[in-house]
Every structure is written in C-alpha cells, then in structure tokens.
C-alpha cells in the first residue's frame, strides 16, 4: 500500500494537523517507507489468533462507585491558555 498526497491531506485532517504543500512529497515518501516496513505483517498467518490487548490479559479492575477526586478546577485551569469565570475559552462555535 502506498500513501499519496491526497491520503496525506486526508489523514492530516483526521489528526488535526496542517501539512505544508512543499512538505507533502517528503512526508509521503517517509510514510511509504514506514508502511513497507509494516507490510511484512501481511505475510504472517494469524488465523484464530486473538489480538493481544494486555500482556497478562488483565481485565479492568472496578472500584466502588464513590467520590475519590476533589474539585480542583482552579488548579487545573491555571495551566489553560484562556479561561474566564471558571470556563475554558475557545473561538466562537455558535453564531
């Protein structure tokens, strides 16, 4: 499989990244090289092999449904780029 300029723009959009027109050829070459490395996987027979999500096949541990975190809004908002009255500011989304 190979990644062309259209694919680059499409995945860049999905990943919310902007790629400069002039960087597209180099990037598509880089990604192609990575994909041809990865394509070795296709030759392996993996019929009936369960995909491995956790090395010890551990399952999610549930805890009691009690409050464990305290409200630390001020502390967390102190590192935000823009806040006002306890709210995060973003560009206008509703006209």
């Amino acid at each position, binding site marked *: 499989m190979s*990644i062309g300029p259209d*694919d*680059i723009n499409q*995945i*860049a959009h*999905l*990943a*919310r*990244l*902007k790629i400069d027109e002039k960087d597209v050829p180099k*990037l598509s070459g*880089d*990604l192609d*090289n*990575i*994909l041809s*490395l*990865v*394509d*070795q*996987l*296709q030759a*392996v027979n*993996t019929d009936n*092999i*369960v*995909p*491995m*999500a*956790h*090395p*010890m096949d*551990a399952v*999610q*541990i549930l*805890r009691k449904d009690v409050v464990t975190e305290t409200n*630390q809004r001020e*502390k*967390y908002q*102190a*590192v*935000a*780029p*823009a806040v006002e009255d306890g709210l*995060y500011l*973003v*560009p*206008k*989304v509703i006209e």
Partner: protein
Amino acid sequence: MFNKTVKELSIGLSQGEFSSVELTQHYLDRIKAKDGEINSFITVTDELALEEAKAADQIRAEGKATDWTGIPFAHKDIFCTKGVLTTCGSKMLENFISPYDATVVSNMKTSGAVCLGKTNMDEFAMGSSNETSYFGKVINPWSDKEQLVPGGSSGGSAAAVAARLTPIATATDTGGSIRQPASLCGLTGLKPTYGRVSRYGMIAFASSLDQAGPMARTAEDAAMMLNVMAGHDAKDSTSIVKDVPDYTASLNNSIDGLRIGLPKEFFNEHLSPELQNILQDSIKQLESQGATFKEISLPHSHLSVPAYYVIAPAECSANLSRFDGVRYGHRCEDPKDLMDMYQRSRTEGFGDEVKRRILIGAYALSAGYYDAYYNKAQQVRRLIKNDFVSAFEDIDVILSPTSPSPAFGFDSKGDDPVQMYLEDIFTISTNLAGLPGMSLPAGLINGLPIGMQLIGNYFEESKLLNVAHRFQTATDWHTLAPKNI
C-alpha cells in the same frame, strides 16, 4: 564524591561523612559547570532541591532516615512534577507547570530522595538519539573527537548519570528507551514488567507498551530505585496487584545452575564481530559462575519492529489527541475558528517525528485499515509473546545484544526514519510481550561502551538484577567513566 554509587552515598550519609545539603550542592555545582556542554537537563530545580536536602538532613537528625533519605537523583521530564515545568521534550508543553505529581514522583518524594531537576528527552519519548527534543540535542559524555548521541528517548537521564551530574535518574521505555541509552552511555538500565510501575502522571506515548524504570550505574542501585518505584497504584488501571519483593535481597544469590537462553535470531550474521566477542566474553564470565547456556528460538522476533510501528503510532495518535490547545499546552495566536485552533496549535506544538507517528497512527486506525494494520499487529504481538512463553519453559533468563552498535554521530542515520527505528531491533519485542528487560555494560568498542541485554520472565526483575549484580561483582565495565567528567 560524584563517583560514588547510590549505595555508597547512602552509607556516607548514614555515617555522617557528608550531609544531604553538601551532597546536593555538590551535584548542583557539577550540573552548573558541566551541563552546558551536554544539555542533559531541561530544568534544574536548585532551590527546591536544597529545601528537600535540608528537610532530609532534619529527618536524619531525628533518627528517621531510610536508604533514600537525602540521596540526589533526577526525573526524566516525562513525569508530571507538581509546581515544576514538565515539558516531555516538546514545544507543546514548553510552559506546562504540572498541577499534580506522577505516582513515580510521589513515591520518590516519600522515599526522602532529593530531586535535582528534569532531564532532556526525545519529544514525547519518540526517538532513539535525543535529536527530536525541542530543547536541543543531548551530547553523549563519552564523545571524544566527534559529538555522539546518548541514545534515546531517555538520553538526558543517561547522559546525566554517565557524566556523574546525578547518581541515578528515572527513565521510561516504550521500545528500548531505557535500555538503548543505557547501552550507549555505559549504564545499567531496567525496564520492568508491564504493570509493575504505575504510569499515572507519566505522559503517555503508547499506553500498552510504556513502562518506567531506573537508569543507574549499577544493578544494586537499580534494585534500590525499583524498590521505591514499583507497586500497584489504583490510579493506573493497568498496574498489577502483586507484592513488590525487596529487589536488593536477592542480588547476591548464586547463579550456579541458572539456565540462560541465547536467541539464535539475535545472534545472526549482522552482528558486528566486536559485539560478538563482547557477548561471548560475557557468556564465558557467567559460565564461570555456573550459569548454563543454550540456544533458543524466537521465530517471530523479526516481526517486532513492524508490529511496533503500527501499535506504537496508533496508540500515540490517540494519546496525543488530548493536546488540543484548550486545557493545557500550546495554543496558536488568534485562531479564526475551532478547527484552525486545533490544527495550528498542534502543527506548531509538535515536532516532525511526532507528527510522522501521529499520521501513521491515524492512517492505521482509519476506516478500512483498522483490521489490516492495528488488529493484525496485535495478533502478531501475541505470536511474539507466545515465543517468549515457550522459551521460558526451559530457561530462566535470555541474554542478547541491547543495541546493534555503540553511540553514533548526529544525523548519521540519514533521512529515512526507518533506519533510526532499527536501532531498537533487539529491545522492542520485550515491550510487545510486556516482559522485563535490562541493559548492563558489557565492554567497549572503539573506546565506547556497549551493553548486553537480559530479558526475564514476567515479574522476574529480581532474577535479572541478581544476574547483573553477579556479573558486576566479577567485572568492571560498569565502573568505567567518560574521560572528561
């Protein structure tokens, strides 16, 4: 003083040879004098360190000191540290002061150790040479005529320990990021079993592979630090509920009769003759202590790098989607709308390697490709794990190279990212399987250190440290230091 190990410093402190304030000041002075050249620290927390050292001396005066009270160390800048700049080597987090402590950070604080600062690293831990850090490359202190890489991504931690700017440091390993820099800087580094050390507050790269561990000079020091780092943490749902043994207790156990496997796939014709000889000498050394060796096979190991470069980028693209310019991290100037803000903040905040991996991951996870890439890679991952499980039926430990070569020059891997990815060819399978692995100094090639890797069965860190310690009591590779320190 700077040539002492953590163990020796701990004894020195307890016998009153020096105070923690003196010791801490000694290292801060060294960082000031030497780090300009090697760039191993992003942040030096001198005032905080001296406060902590003072408190440690007070605790000692009250007779409540433990092994770690007052011992200086450094954190890789991937661990969130309350009130301290935490950058992960990225412009994205150039101004991020963490509002909370990672569990590893709070464990080290509770131990009474003194944090000197935060070490440089490849951006978001993606790299094997430390060239991708936004805060500049780290220079390997072993460099002589030509500047050499320290390895990566924990290159700052490795360079700082090798240059004796700190006795020990924390580090993390997703595909070899503790072991490969340990090999290239002449250090002893351990990646524990997946789930042994909490990932809470450790900025995520690939969550099913990431694991934190010590970057040390000796196996004994690594064991001491793992004692503090390891343990179940309710804040990390992938951390394992299992008692933590005292890793120092078994260091001196006899290795007579220990069965060590040599994977034939790793001892192949591509291995340089110099490295072959070094590994053969190490094998002879361990044989002289009673260990027995046999060839084993890990038939799917050649698929480790391909599987990794699906799984790690896929998880990275998901993890790094949290950097949206809203709650923390870089935000672009004057965004015209929400999409513009996301795109420009991320495009300006991330470096090239991080973007490449996000794009590969987004591609592998996108509609129509998920089964062909991600699912397939996770299936192959199980085959890789099964190879290890069968191998460990007849052996106790695996011995292999850590890195294909000693430290290399900057930009020497050319333009193709795949060349750099092959740097981790011996280390990646351990992360995919979730097994513990370590690297320890095994010899010199052209005057540069190179390590050997030991891989253990799940939760057998004690055994790895035991073998490494026995090797280090009989050899002196781990005591060698760069010339100009």
